[in-house]
């Protein structure tokens, strides 16, 4: 670990938080239908879209209608994407003449992009046409991100004393998020990436003569724009198989800093939006502080694990200077690779600039654990916010009892119904992650997918199920994922991780929004101070740790101790 590396990590996170606060306020204003600096330009477009589609933004929805709207738009887009993937041969912009995806892979991919997971059991540049990438994947990057943010907005509104059962209008929210937030920032990012060297073209490939005089075909395509929303919407599905480690997706150190900033930006703005929509700005900042503190801690932990390098290589006389560089780009180095790995797993993005399979055992443990914590620090766009609200409810429930009052969060009493729904949501995650891993490690098909044996193999399989359930989408690699077991199994995990969590949370929002808002008094446990930040962080860590420590001890921990004893797998 070097001071420079630590400074890089801490500084970038500080810049992210600094930008996320005004962005959160902006998103809250947009979703409340207030005038913003973009209204003169986008206002007419917005009104035109609403008139065209018959949306009345003032028509509020209850939690059921709102949830159904989110499910319907996801279902329609999943079918649409499935059709595009299967039929890409017959669709325009297919210069390489790629044939359609197999039904199984198309099913897995459609669900993966619709759930904001972007798990890729294929290589983009050798499987998908430019048309499928643009019309299929890029469009869905927008839709799935907007669905997540609007769900977060609905949950935020539930805490407002004015909500009275109404959580907003889902169609208006999705439209406004895309129009005012995702599109403008993506366009700015696209411009930056283009300037830094990312391609944006309808050509499929270029053929060049290398210095050695050999002809080489290099895949290109409409990369820059897809890259922008892939990062911004915490989607993570790369144009190329190498994802953001590919020089066309991430040309250099500057583009890397921009991408790392952008993938954290909206997730960190969500608690600010939450506070403003709920009418409790300070409580939103407490959630932001919890997220920022935990992420900084884990990023530094990951950096520490990587910067130390591999003691086995060191023993062979290989320099450890620069830390563990296996699977990392020399352009980015250990510190930024560690920060990106922590950011991408903590945000459910899943884009990678380094191979997570090649992280040190403890580094891999951090990435796994960050997803297993429930993707809440800060989590995916929107999903991280409604996830951390569930943890906040559970934390307040136990802590609230300790101050001798029926627990309440932001003035809403937490009673049996909310606890039941929160536990239901939380239960799904270990069931899918641990159940899926245990099951596949005991089938011939699952074992056949593993590239490594022993604890490292366990980590690979655990990572796949963790990533799918957490809607992260990054892969530990070293796993052949396009098998019937994993294609179908992980698709189910993705659906569970997204909707078996979202629906109970929306039901909680519905229940809370109907409750009377209690005034905070001296006897009310304050949820906007340092004590609550510490408590919430503790609850997230302990709850996550208690669920996954046994599995982690058989994976990365066993590997770590084995490594210290000079054994490899």
């Amino acid at each position, binding site marked *: 670990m070097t001071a420079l590396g630590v400074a890089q990590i801490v500084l970038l996170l500080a810049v992210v938080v600094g930008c996320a606060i005004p962005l959160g306020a902006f998103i809250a204003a947009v979703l409340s239908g207030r005038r913003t600096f973009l209204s003169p330009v986008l206002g007419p477009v917005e009104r035109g879209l609403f008139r065209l589609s018959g949306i009345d933004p003032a028509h509020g929805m209850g939690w059921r209608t709102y949830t159904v709207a989110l499910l319907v738009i996801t279902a329609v887009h999943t079918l649409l994407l499935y059709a595009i993937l299967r039929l890409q041969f017959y669709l325009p912009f297919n210069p390489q003449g790629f044939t359609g995806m197999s039904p199984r892979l198309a099913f897995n991919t459609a669900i993966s992009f619709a759930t904001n997971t972007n798990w890729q059991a294929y290589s983009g540049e050798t499987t998908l046409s430019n048309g499928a990438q643009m019309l299929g994947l890029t469009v869905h990057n927008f839709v799935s991100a907007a669905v997540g943010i609007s769900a977060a907005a609905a949950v935020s509104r539930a805490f407002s*004393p004015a909500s009275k059962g109404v959580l907003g209008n889902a169609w208006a929210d999705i439209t406004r998020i895309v129009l005012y937030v995702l599109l403008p920032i993506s366009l700015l990012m696209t411009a930056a990436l283009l300037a830094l060297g990312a391609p944006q073209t309808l050509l499929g490939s270029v053929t060049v003569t290398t210095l050695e005089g050999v002809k080489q075909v290099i895949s290109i395509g409409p990369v820059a724009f897809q890259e922008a929303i892939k990062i911004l919407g915490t989607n993570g599905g790369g144009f190329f198989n190498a994802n953001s480690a590919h020089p066309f997706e991430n040309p250099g150190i500057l583009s890397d800093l921009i991408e790392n900033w952008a993938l954290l930006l909206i997730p960190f703005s969500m608690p600010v939006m939450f506070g403003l929509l709920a009418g409790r700005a300070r409580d939103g900042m407490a959630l932001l502080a919890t997220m920022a503190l935990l992420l900084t801690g884990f990023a530094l932990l990951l950096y520490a694990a990587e910067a130390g390098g591999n003691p086995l290589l060191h023993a062979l006389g290989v320099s450890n200077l620069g830390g563990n560089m296996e699977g990392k780009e020399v352009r980015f180095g250990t510190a930024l690779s560690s920060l990106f790995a922590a950011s991408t797993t903590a945000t459910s993005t899943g884009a990678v600039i380094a191979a997570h399979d090649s992280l040190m055992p403890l580094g891999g443990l951090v990435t796994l654990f960050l997803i297993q914590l429930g993707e809440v620090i800060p989590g995916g766009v929107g999903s991280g916010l409604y996830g951390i609200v569930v943890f906040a409810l559970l934390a307040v*429930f*136990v*802590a*609230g*009892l*300790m*101050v*001798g*009052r*029926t627990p309440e969060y932001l*003035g809403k009493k*937490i*009673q*049996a119904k*909310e*606890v*039941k729904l929160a*536990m239901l949501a*939380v*239960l799904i995650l*270990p069931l899918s992650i*641990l*159940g899926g*891993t*245990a*099951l596949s*490690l*005991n089938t011939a098909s699952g*074992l056949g997918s593993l590239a490594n044996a*022993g*604890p490292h*193999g*366990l980590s690979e399989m655990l990572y796949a199920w963790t990533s799918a359930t957490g809607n992260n989408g990054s892969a530990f690699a070293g796993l052949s994922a396009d098998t019937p077991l994993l294609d179908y199994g992980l698709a189910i995990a993705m659906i569970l991780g997204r909707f078996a969590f979202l629906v109970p949370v929306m039901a909680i929002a519905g229940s809370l929004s109907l409750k009377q*808002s*209690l*005034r905070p*008094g*001296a*006897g*009310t*446990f304050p949820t906007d101070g340092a*004590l609550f930040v510490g*408590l919430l962080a503790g609850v997230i860590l*302990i709850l996550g*740790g*208690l*669920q*996954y*420590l*046994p*599995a982690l*001890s*058989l994976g990365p921990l*066993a590997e*770590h*101790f*084995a490594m*210290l*004893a000079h054994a490899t797998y």
Partner: protein
Amino acid sequence: MNASTSQPDTASPALFDSGMLLRATRDALVKLNPVHLIASPVIFTTEIIALLVTVLALNDVVTHQPAGFAFQVAFWLWLTVLFATFAEAVAEGRGRARAESLRRGRTDLKAKLLVSPDRNALYRPVSATELRRGSVVLVEIGDLVPSDGEVIEGVASVDESAITGESAPVIREAGGDRSAVTGGTRLVSDWLVVKITADPGQTFIDRMIGLVEGASRRKTPNEIALDILLAGLTIIFLIAVVTLVGLAHYSGSALAVPVLAALLVTLIPTTIGGLLSAIGIAGMDRLVRFNVMATSGRAVEAAGDIDMLLLDKTGTITFGNRMATAFMPAAGISESRLATAAAMASIGDETPEGRSIQAFARTRFSVDPARPDDAQTIPFSANTRMSGLDAAGRSWRKGAVASVLANLSGAKPAGFDEIVDRIARAGGTPLAVTEDGVLLGVVALSDVVKPGIRERFASLRKMGIRTVMITGDNEVTAAAIAAEAGVDDFLAQATPQDKLDYIRREQTEGRLVAMCGDGTNDAPALAQADVGVAMQTGTQAAREAGNMVDLDSDPTKLIEIVEIGKQLLITRGSLTTFSIANDVSKYFAILPAIFVATYPGLAALNIMRLHTPQSAILSAVIFNALIIVALVPLALRGVAYRPLGAAALLRRNLLVYGVGGLIAPFIGIKAIDLVLSFLKVA
């Protein structure tokens, strides 16, 4: 009221005594019945697992395999369950003694059922169990009141010691605020015609018996929520442990069922799961010891939540009886002459006012006249509205200004009306004083705030509860007393409708309101309040409208009720936190123990340096069982509540039960491991 009855320490018996423990042990065994245990999901799960391990251990014996370890695990798992049922049995046992004495008073009550609601009507003797709501009965001197009811005719003194423990009889009369009678109390004078207001089995005493026995106990809303949380955690750990079989199998290690059972039971929140119902029963019991009857546990929980307390001024904040606070002489008369005359007029006057005048004259002017030998006391009468003393041809009188003026021989001194006005405006009562028919001046009587009440309100404020005084006085008087008593707000010249409106307004603003009252006109406000405490001396209407009845009729008891409600929640929260925090240490004990054979490196996680894998697992299980018993006294007594702000309280409890819960089991498990290895058990 009798001050000592509100002190729980004097009323509370020792936490345990041997006879009770014996009975509790027997009950604990009966409670092992799974049908009973299913109400507590965590302990039910533990019992199933204990059964499973026992069966497997027996199977090992039959198939001649070593079964010693499995039996040891099974033994401690059964003890875990037994300790949990024991905790509940002990809690119930403490309420039972009181229930027995109540029940004794209730059996074979006889009633005189009147054919028509008239004292002189014919009656026929029936058993109290035949009485229904609406029956009219005659109760005469020496009779036990057969059931709860409302006096519709007559006045009588009633000995209510059977329910209040207070031996002084109280007056019950038709009309007014003292018309309610309770079944099981005894008439010590006169007669009453009573209209029955409760069907058999639903009388006040029946409800009390149900409450203290815990038989009619239903889970409170918060308890249900907590139960769901615990059940959810149990399922999560079930998932973690069951899937671990698959992961371990892949890793090449086969996990034996007793080991998995040990891991699961030590992880699921058995500590709080086992103590939860004991905490609830003990909380109710604590309330009963304070002589407060709650209609439901829900009301007790709500008491912990209240933000605002509405108190009647008279009798609660002030003494109610008016006391002398100033002598205001007429022009030309000295203050000490007036004091002497007033003191003379009060000799032999044993009313609170009379005594207060004497006391005030003594302390302020050192005037303490002796009673003349031939003195004749003229008592106060509603007719004359004066009292005084005649001796040796002289006379001293004090009384209502109008009556005194009417009987005045001389002229009214100049400026007298201004003095009277001034006292009245300040909320006081003027008493005119004459000596030999000459008007000397006025004694100002005013309400006096109870000593110590200011401190009680201050401690309520620290709990986050605002106090509001309700009074029929005018604004000026109310403001003066409010400032003196240190209440946060007051409602002057309050009508019953004003009270109701005030409560409604606070509730719509999101506050929870408690109030206490006794009169029929308080009933709507009592019903509207989130916590309504009716006084035992109050009317039946008030008692039905409220959700608690204070047997001592002490309105400031609300403070204790709030504390008990809070203590109940704090105890649950603290033990839940403790239970969950304990889990961390159990991983460090059990995980290295079960995987060290497969991955020797994991021995590094055995930070407690436990001797053998078997002793590590057993130590965790034994600690998990013993901690339940160790915490039974705390569960019954409740975690101490301090009137601190919420943040300070949380910081304290998190430190004790959260951080303490993380550290304590490391020490405990290590200690048990040392004992086990010393005994060579494992």
